[in-house]
């Protein structure tokens, strides 16, 4: 997965002197229907209707925050955004711009309706390609689509190393040092830049846009692009370009009542047996 990244042994994790240079970070931000008021599935396409006002996916607010912190630590540089969204929607971008990103590219095109995750990644990659980024940051998974595949696909399309589930990132010269969340703890990874990293939710505290940030957001540039501007033919994107098809949407099964173990003095044995059967202990 990360061809040019490698896991450091513990003894190799030394605090290297950070040489500062201007950081250019591109953050992928998805704009999604408000999860508190998500609207409905379209029964025909089996995808979420996106005709409501979209907001910045909270999963991506962590990426924006991490990018801003990296640029602040470098002392120089900028954070730019890329987003693919229907109807030229930019409310979510506005939030990220108000947090402090400098500019954005918005890909919006009726031809893109029905685009699957891989094609989304290709489109985002085409948008990112010529930006001269040191780092591309995305969320580990979006809150609505939730495939958790787009960041790695972007890395593959751009032929860049990919580090997933980053809980912290530090720049060291031309490398980044990443702590990668694992079940047991974390891996320490060193990886050359440019690279694509995906950020786990909750690892940084996303700032609230300030009044000044909000007022400044409106005058920040948002460049709009169509699929054709990025070199895609109509049949390469949208429904026709999708290699995947959603064949069925089903209600999640309702939770069944659990087993109640009455303590007759042997309850602990039964609990241990149960946990062993689940292979959690």
């Amino acid at each position, binding site marked *: 997965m990360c061809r040019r990244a490698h896991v450091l042994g513990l003894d190799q994790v030394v605090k290297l002197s950070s040489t500062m240079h201007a950081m250019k970070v591109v953050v992928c931000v998805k704009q999604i229907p*408000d999860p*508190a*008021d998500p609207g409905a599935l379209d029964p025909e396409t089996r995808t979420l209707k996106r005709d409501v006002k979209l907001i910045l996916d909270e999963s991506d607010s962590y990426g924006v925050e991490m990018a801003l912190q990296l640029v602040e630590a470098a002392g120089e540089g900028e954070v730019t955004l890329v987003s693919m969204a229907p109807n030229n929607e930019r409310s979510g971008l*506005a*939030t990220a711009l*108000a947090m402090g990103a400098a500019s954005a590219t918005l890909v919006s095109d009726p031809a893109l309706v029905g685009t699957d995750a891989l094609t989304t990644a290709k489109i985002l990659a085409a948008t990112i390609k010529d930006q001269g980024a040191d780092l591309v940051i995305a969320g580990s998974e979006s809150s609505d689509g939730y495939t958790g595949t787009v960041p790695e696909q972007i890395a593959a399309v751009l032929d860049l190393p990919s580090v997933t589930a980053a809980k912290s990132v530090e720049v060291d010269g031309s490398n980044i040092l990443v702590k990668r969340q694992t079940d047991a703890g974390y891996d320490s990874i060193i990886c050359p830049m440019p690279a694509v990293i995906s950020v786990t939710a909750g690892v940084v505290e996303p*700032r*609230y*846009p*300030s*009044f*000044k940030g*909000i*007022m400044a*957001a*409106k005058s920040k540039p948002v460049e709009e692009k169509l699929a054709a501007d990025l070199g895609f033919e109509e049949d390469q994107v949208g429904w026709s370009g999708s290699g995947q098809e959603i064949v069925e949407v089903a209600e999640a099964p309702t939770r069944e009542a659990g087993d109640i173990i009455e303590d007759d003095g042997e309850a602990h044995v039964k609990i241990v047996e149960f946990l062993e059967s689940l292979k959690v202990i």
Partner: protein
Amino acid sequence: MSTPLGPKAENARDFLATDSLLSEEEIMLRDTVRRYVDKEILPEVGAWFDEGVFPHKEVAKTIGDMGLLGMHLEGYGCAGSSAMMYGLACAELEAGDSGLRSFVSVQGSLAMFPIWAYGSEEHKQEWLPPMAAGDAIGCFGLTEPDSGSDPSSMRTNAKQQPNGDWLLNGTKMWITNGSIADVAVVWARADEGIRGFVVPTNIEGFSAPKIERKVSLRASVTSELILDNVRLPADAVLPGVASMRGPLSCLNEARFGILFGVVGAARACYEAALNYANERIQFGGPISRFQLTQQRLVDFMTAVQQGTLLSYHLGRLKDQGELGPAQVSFGKRQNTRMAIEVAREARSVLGANGITTEYPVIRHMNNLESVYTYEGTNEIHTLIMGQAITGHSAFA
């Protein structure tokens, strides 16, 4: 956004589409403060209220970073927003808790405003940037044990010494943020009239014991200020004003924030009642299907929407420089009465659950009793408006 209102969410939240009266930036600021309150205040504030605490350090830092402290003031690290934006922020903060909004009102309108409007350049340089950032907390001492609605009867006095120093003596009462303040703006009687003093709270002779046993505004610090021969340098006095106009102009700023804020509290009560009524099943169905419940819910919604329109109108007038003090009284009096009525009636929609702090309504209801009394009681605003329309003063 926060509270799912069911299938008719749009109608329930903003029946008259009052959002259409706001700019994109105003909506974004409003939504940002709402998100902050939903995420960081609402999950905690019931417990703060129960325990009678307010974690001012964390709160001040975050809202300072957001630019909400002294936000409608220009320069010295203040955000310089419109009055409308300040009002919108107050409404969202008070949808969380009146104590939170009080903290912001006192900091921005009562402590920072007089320094900004009447202070010397040194006062402004020293205090405004850290207060805007939330690193320094301010309070405002006008009311005394024997001087409330009639502040010009105050006894706290300031005597200038031959070397120019000031000697302050007296007691202030019911002072929000008193015990947590780094600086107090204290109003006192001097030979030449009522003067304001910038008092660092670590100075000798100053103490601020907390007032306990409140059943209202519990997530807010209220204190007594004791000034026992507090000696201040000559330049501690606010040079720009020497009359009751000083404190009254501050109150006018804060009352403006309140007339927005209480609409937020009323909205929170209405939405809590609506959600509850949609979920609570009695006689085989949700209580929101009863005509009597619907009448109450529609009354709440109507009152909140009217209060919103009133606040927006007064906000626009203020930004045009055309808002008079008696119009501020109209807003403070009307919207606070509205909010307290909505809160009381909404409380009863929640039945027995309504009397616990598991739900926000009784907390708002109790808080609003303070809001009804401070910043000019309901009666005092009635008299201000009465005088404005008849020409007769009925104060004394």
